[in-house]
């Protein structure tokens, strides 16, 4: 006769089986939790801590290797401070801030010569400079070829246009020695002379404290392209030590004592970078 193995299927036997399962489950669960508690207690009190290990090599300074905290420790906040960490940045070699961008130094004689040249070309500081070369008398189409971008011809730094392009250059800029290259030299000195003495160039801008960016000693009217004088387009004497920084007026404020409001109602013509030669027509 075959009797199913295992599970008794009589009512009483069934009841017994259920009770047995329940008991074993309960025992199992409580055992689990007791074990957990056991682990906790054991780890908290009885297990030994791992102490710092001195791993000094021969010849090297003693280095403390900090012990990584256990995860269980994290909530208790018993971490050690990082005072063992040592910063050695101070002993690293740093380049001097300005030395990164080399600007040629000028002797006082050079500087005086440059200033004098600048002065002779202008009736006063702010006047449109006269051209030390003959000019095309009929049309200004060629001016920007040399004066529109930083240009050096031989040893001569060509002055770069510092204001937006106004179409008729020769309305303001004239030649300093007669109208054209085919014009024979005439005596251009005044017979009686003129005693006009113009406003001098402003010197260096003032600084609020040592190391502060100097304020502009001039207004930006007609001088709104800073790099035309202070960048590669200008003479070495005026060059900035930091040409990589493009937003000049972020640090170099207009001088509060000068009236630098740009008050004319219309926007000026487009700056040089947007100039197209065929827009003359």
């Amino acid at each position, binding site marked *: 006769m075959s009797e199913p193995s295992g599970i008794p299927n009589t009512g009483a036997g069934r009841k017994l089986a259920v009770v047995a399962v329940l008991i074993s489950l309960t025992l199992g669960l409580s055992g689990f939790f007791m074990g957990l508690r056991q682990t906790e207690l054991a780890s908290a009190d009885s297990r030994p801590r791992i102490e710092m290990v001195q791993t000094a090599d021969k010849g090297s300074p003693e280095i403390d290797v900090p012990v990584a905290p256990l995860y269980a420790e994290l909530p208790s906040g018993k971490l050690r401070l990082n005072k063992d960490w040592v910063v050695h940045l101070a002993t690293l070699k740093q380049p001097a801030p300005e030395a990164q961008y080399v600007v040629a130094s000028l002797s006082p004689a050079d500087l005086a010569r440059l200033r004098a040249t600048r002065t002779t070309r202008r009736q006063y500081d702010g006047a449109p400079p006269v051209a030390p070369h003959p000019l095309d008398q009929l049309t200004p189409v060629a001016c920007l070829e040399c004066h529109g971008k930083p240009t050096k011809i031989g040893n001569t730094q060509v002055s770069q246009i510092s204001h937006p392009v106004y179409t008729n250059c020769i309305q303001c800029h004239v030649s300093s020695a007669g109208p054209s290259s085919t014009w024979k030299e005439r005596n251009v000195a005044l017979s009686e002379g003129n*005693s006009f003495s113009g406003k001098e160039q402003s010197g260096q801008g003032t600084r609020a404290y040592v190391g502060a960016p100097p304020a502009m000693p001039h207004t930006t009217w007609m001088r709104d392209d800073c790099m035309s004088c202070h960048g590669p387009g200008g003479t070495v004497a005026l060059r900035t030590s930091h040409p990589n920084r493009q937003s000049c007026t972020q640090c170099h404020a207009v001088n509060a004592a000068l009236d630098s409001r740009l008050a004319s109602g219309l926007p000026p013509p487009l700056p040089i970078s947007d100039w197209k030669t065929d827009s003359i027509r």
Partner: protein
Amino acid sequence: MTMDRREFLRNTAMAAATAVIAQRLGAVETLTETSAVTKTPDGIRWDKAPCRFCGTGCHVRVGVKDGRVVAIQGEQLAEVNKGLLCVKGYHVGGILYGKDRLTTPMLRRNGQLEPISWDEAIDTIAKRVLKDPKGFAFYGSGQWTIPEGYAAQKFMKGGLANNHIEPNARLCMASAVTGYLSVYGVDEPAGCYDDLDAADVIILWGNNPAEMHPVLFSRVIDRRTKGQTVKIIDIGTRRTRSTEFADEYLEFRPQSDMAIANGIAHLLLKNDAWDKAFVEKHCNFRGDNQPLDLLGKPISFDDYRKAVEEYTPEFVEKISGVPAAKIRMLGELFAKRDIRITSLWCMGMNQHTRGTAINRLVHSIHLLSGHFGKPGDAPTSLTGQPSACGTAREVGTMCNFLPGGRLVVNAGHRKESEEIWKLPEGRINPKPGYHTVQLFEKFCTPTDKGGDIHTVIVQVTNPGQSLPNLHKLFKAKQGLEDKFLIVSEVYPTATTELADLVLPAALWVEKNGIFGNSERRTQQWFKQVEPPGQARPDAWITIAVAHRLFELGHPGMKDREGNFIFTIKDEKGAEVPAWDFAHYEDVNVDKALYDEYRLFSFYKHKHLAPYDVLAKARGLRWPVVQGADGSWNETKFRFTEGSDPFVAKGKGIQFYHSVTKDDKALIWFCPYEPAAESPDGDFPTWLCTGRVLEHWHTGTMTMRVPQLRNAMPNAYVEMNPDDAAASGLGNGDMAVVESRRGKIELPVWINGRARPPRGTVFVPFFDERLLINDVTLGEPCPISKEPDYKKCAVKVYRKATANVLPEKTIPHG
């Protein structure tokens, strides 16, 4: 709601809206009304002034330090130039400081000028006037300030009852004046510089604004760099700098501009493209009388149509040399209703033996095609001098005008002027005096041969260089012992060469002043530096002479109450002896004279703002009218409703000074007529004269500024390369330019600043060592009396022996 409450609410509502507007305008106004005077830490005091030079009327900021001008800036707050200047404007500070500046009065004794005192000088002048008051003449200038011109005007016309007062503007703007008068009934452009910002097409009629009105020209061409399209058409007799910026260049034979204008009118009618509505509503037709006069006679539309019928494009091509296709292009352009066309002109049309006629014709084609009265649609004559408009034309310092657009021949006008001047009735002489050419002709003719002008006082101009036909009109004075020339000047000039009495004058910012530019803008400035030595303002000179005559008993120097005609009072009403130079600056004499002159300006609706209002602004365009809220509003576009406060509501465009008294302008027909002197066998070349960018007129100021002098050191004759080759002339060679009147030697310049066509030459007139006016013709327009400097016949040939430029300078003393 009761009526009261409704009324109250409506008033409150209107007040709220008006207040918002006032606040918005106030935000704009405070910017322009900021004090002109500022000081920068380098010790420079900045103040405003209009530029001393051309009729553009740019505003500058003058920087003064230690009593001297040291810098100039373009005035950003000025609407005219918005901070930009030209090379002359940038260097205008230097004109005060030439080393041979005149500083003492000088009297010529035994051929030499010797220093004398001011008292003696004023006395000398008074005695010369008393010798024969009718034979005394006053020659002034479009570079006179308004008070200076007004003082001279009152002295001559109201004091001496003598109408021999003329400005040098007779030589530059007279044809424009007669053009405006015969078309609109009143002088001065209806448009303004705002037209330049709005025009789609700008037509240049024989002028070169790239050199002569550079800031205005830049205003146009700089629009292109902002992405706008503006078409420039240069109608000229030679290629200039302006041509380089033009889209079209139409080269015409001298004088044939009249045919071109008639050709456009012809096409408008032929293609039925004229603006019928505009002409119907706003225009009548007019033709010339014989002999020619200012107002002509009415003609019918059919007469007009018949008259322009022969000016077909082919006919115009035959006369002018401009291809018929280009004439058609112009005709089509004017026929378009949806574009704005501005015509600009200056001396090419004014210094013309038919100057009045060509002015009328250009106005007429704008009226016929309806290109008038909207921003950008304007026929506008540009003025050469800084105050030819403000002083010579408005103050009326001409032999036939009274202030404010009045005429000496008109009894009503004389009466009004006598009223304002408080003169006894009948004081003003009804007979026009001599016009400029006549005046100098008489002066240079011996007294026993009818030369009834014995003494001329010249202020602020250089007729010894700028008159045409100099041998006849100026140099002939030499040797005439009983003729006396008084010159108030700043430097030795071609005129002081023959002067019997030289007076040192204050220049520009060495005195208060007011100028009026091409767009009806009156601009004021205050004195900023002291004049050198004993130089004194011209207005003082006139008042001092008048007072000396008053002391000597001349009845003309009294008004109807027996008071001196230049009685100047201060704010408290106390009289200030302005003729005594020590007290001249106790009060603002400029203001006193201007506020009196202002009363004249209302008759022809040229309302001027009061002096104190002008002092705060960078110029105001008249008519300036006070609004209900007390603010002063200028007028941009005259005769146009919404802009001109005198146009009646609903009229749209109203020519309220119409010749025909029906609010209509006149469309004129004038036939093409050949020039007074055309090239022929003996003298086969056209001579044109004019200016250059660097120099102002006769160069007395600019030739003394090193930057300007060096840029353009001497005059030259511009020749076509083929003509030069044919004459054996190369660049820099000395050539002789000879006419029936005289000859001079000049260096040749080929392929320089301009390109004259074959058969023409050009010579600038700024060089006192090379007086091209020895050669020019003196023929004037019969209506305007303005001489033609642009056309005469010469021959140009190589000088036999090589020579260098004369190094002559005008001796100082």
